[in-house]
């Protein structure tokens, strides 16, 4: 069942040149986590705020649970939408205890019902013992979990999360992320999750939507986004791709490191670029090879080499951590990928 339907959403702020959100459409079904990802200023947070009712769209429409909540003619205020939201700065009310913060969204219920519901939520996020504390007495990770409990307590139609982990330290983030995803899945929540971190998006999202300059570039499963990028931007943003120049031949694509035997549906001798990741390239030492090692970065489990091809282009290649070669070594680089690569004309 469709939980959320967003159609041709447009939002431009006064005094700005470009639309913050430009003709964005997507839908979300039950129990699904959608990660909205893109660089800062791409419109992901604005999209979220439009869905929450914190901003009013210029045009387009938003349907929540099959009822229209925003269009040119209709605007349901945030308090009537029944969504839950986790804010970037958590926005816990500093004058209320943990218990009262979580209870804030539970209205028109008896005291006993509120106590049970809040208790369940705090138990789930593992903070039942902290219910009498105030937000300033909590650690960053605990605050994060209270914010989540508060958003989930009223059993919202949709949970919106705006960069919820960005205020946490890196070492804490991975653990909290795992915990939060587990909770969301066990609650069978429908979630939109905003982040600028592609790794986090790949981890959290059942599906990913990549935004750039207010436009939806691509939406799909993490695997699709990663391996079958629709646009050069997506390939670049999601996976640190190098773009290898090439020419279309009858039996493949001719590049500076040889022929890639991949048939593309383009006329011969068209100039193209092949998106290629460091793990798709291999090399061996060869005095008369086609590339020169110009840098090596030890990454623990592997070595990342920077190679300068004779054409002048620089590409990256991964080699086992035991294979250490000095800078200046001449090598022969070749494509080792066994899957098809994404080609842009």
């Amino acid at each position, binding site marked *: 069942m469709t939980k959320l339907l967003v159609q041709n959403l447009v939002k431009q702020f006064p005094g700005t040149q470009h639309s913050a959100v430009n003709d964005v459409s997507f839908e979300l079904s039950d129990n699904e986590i959608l990660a909205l990802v893109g660089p800062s200023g791409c419109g992901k947070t604005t999209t979220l705020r439009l869905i929450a009712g914190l901003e*009013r769209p210029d045009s387009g429409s938003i349907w929540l649970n099959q009822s229209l909540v925003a269009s040119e003619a209709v605007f349901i205020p945030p*308090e009537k939408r029944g969504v839950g939201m986790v804010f*970037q700065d958590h926005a816990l009310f500093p004058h209320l205890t943990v218990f009262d913060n979580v209870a804030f969204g539970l209205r028109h219920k008896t005291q006993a019902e509120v106590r049970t519901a809040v208790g369940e939520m705090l138990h789930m996020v593992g903070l039942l013992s902290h219910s009498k504390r105030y937000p300033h007495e909590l650690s960053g990770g605990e605050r994060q979990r209270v914010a989540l409990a508060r958003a989930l307590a009223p059993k919202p139609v949709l949970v919106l999360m705006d960069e919820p982990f960005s205020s946490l330290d890196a070492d804490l983030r991975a653990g909290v992320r795992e915990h939060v995803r587990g909770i969301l899945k066990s609650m069978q929540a429908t979630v939109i999750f905003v982040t600028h971190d592609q790794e986090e998006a790949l981890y959290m999202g059942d599906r990913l939507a990549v935004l750039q300059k207010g436009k939806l570039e691509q939406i799909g499963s993490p695997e699709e986004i990663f391996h079958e990028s629709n646009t050069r931007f997506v390939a670049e943003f999601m996976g640190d791709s190098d773009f290898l120049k090439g020419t279309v031949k009858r039996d493949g694509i001719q590049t500076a490191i040889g022929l890639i035997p991949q048939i593309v549906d383009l006329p011969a001798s068209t100039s193209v670029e092949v998106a290629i990741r460091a793990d798709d390239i291999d090399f061996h030492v060869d005095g008369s090879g086609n590339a020169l090692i110009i840098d090596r970065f030890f990454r623990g489990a592997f070595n990342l080499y920077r190679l300068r091809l004779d054409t002048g282009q620089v590409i990256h290649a991964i080699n086992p951590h035991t294979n250490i070669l000095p800078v200046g070594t001449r090598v022969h680089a070749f494509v080792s990928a066994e899957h098809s690569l994404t080609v842009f004309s």
Partner: protein
Amino acid sequence: MEITHTNITYQKLRSKISPRLALAAGLVALFVAVPLIYIFVRAITAEPEAWTRLFQERIWKLFANTLGLVLAVTAGAMLTGVTMAFLTERTDLPGKKIFRWMLAMPLAIPAYIGGIVHLALLRPRGGVIPKLLEDIFGQPVFTPSPLGFGGAAFILTLFMFPYVYLLSGAAFRTLHASLEEASRVFGRTPLQTLFQVTLPALRPGLTAGALLVALDILAEYGTVALLRYETFSSAIFVQLSGRYDRSAASVLSGILVILAIGILWSELRLQGRARFTQMESNWRPAPLMMLGKWRIPAFLLVLGVVSASLLLPVGVLLVWSVQAFLDPETMAMLFHTGSQGFGTYVWNSLWSSSMAAVIAVMLSLPVGLFAVRYPNRLSKFLSRLSQVGYAIPGVVIALSLVLLVNRFLPFLYATPFIVVIAYVLRHMPQAVRASESALNQLSPSLEEASRVMGRTSLQTLFQVILPLILPGLLAGGSLVFLTSLKELPATLLLRPAGFDTLAVRVWVWAGEGFYFQAAPAALLLVLVSALPLSFLLRREQIFK
């Protein structure tokens, strides 16, 4: 140069402005602006002879007198304030912790009360000190006179410098040590660092402090009248109370207000940059400068300033009060002057000032909310307009209210409420600033969280915003209370017969030479002012 200030202004652009809020903010701004506009109308429509007469005789001298005093006191307050702040924040001065309090405390002493004490001590004929010297040496000894320009500048500096002291003290304290370390690494000596890096970094705060002092001097009535130095304010007071020439008073007021608005305009432009800097997480204190052989002279210097501005006035008031209590005749006068007595004055002071504080804070809320949550040209304009009270000296507000009420609201004339309205108009800016800064520190996501969880904007106001900004509102309210309590010229001009506040009584008694009788009231005024002041000081980092 980048100056450390973490000024949390969220400028989330909303698509829709609440018309109710805009209307409320507009009404408040209008209420504050009407007296100002009316003064200009009266000044422009005054008969031409009033203009020519004034221009021929007085205006140039008044201009020179007023500007001279403003410049002298501002310079004096800057020099004293920054020196004191440097010595107590950045050096190993002995006793600096207690000095920090004592240097801020003169704010609780109205300048005219300080003036009364200094005048009684130093008066050329009959002053305590000249008399004492004459007794010792058997012949008159020259002592500097507190009357005229020199005396006025000296005494006003003594009671104005704490503004600059507080602003620069906080700035000295919160400035990043790394800024100065960088300067040292690049080859500057500590002294060069002070003048090339530290002081320039403090400049926005210092300028704001200087402008505040300048505005206060323009508006000052009590001290200049006491020391017989004529400025615009005292001239307007004389025109209004003595000769009852309202045209001349309007013309003078118009010119004074234009001067003040010029200063206020620059101050408002700086305001955003001049806020107290906030501590950042990686803040660490700068190393102290060792005074070495200068320790004793520095200590004596600070002690001298503290003595003249705090210990001496309070001490003298204490002695006088004790003498008053020991003398049955003075006691009788103190508690029964006609049908009134000390209790009546205290009550009048308290209720009029608290009422002004409550009204000012309530009125400041829509203006603050509108300006902070919907930052646009209109809201900014309304916020500035409601702060125009700073630029309207008490005498001018009194004049304007007398004229306005006489013509449009005669039933209010000669009631205590007109005094309260004057306090609100004059001290509204403090309330507006307090509300705005409290709201500024409130992350808008708290409000949004409340909305998302089903509260309307009005419910959000009462359940989330107000509880959180309450401390800020209390601070603003106590500032309004404090300054209303000390207010003199507007109270003198507007009060109905028999409505005596503590400030009025001190002024009248001291003017008639009954110092002992005036002392307990003055002392009480100082003590009551000291309470909200210490509440405010405790909020600042440097007094913890």
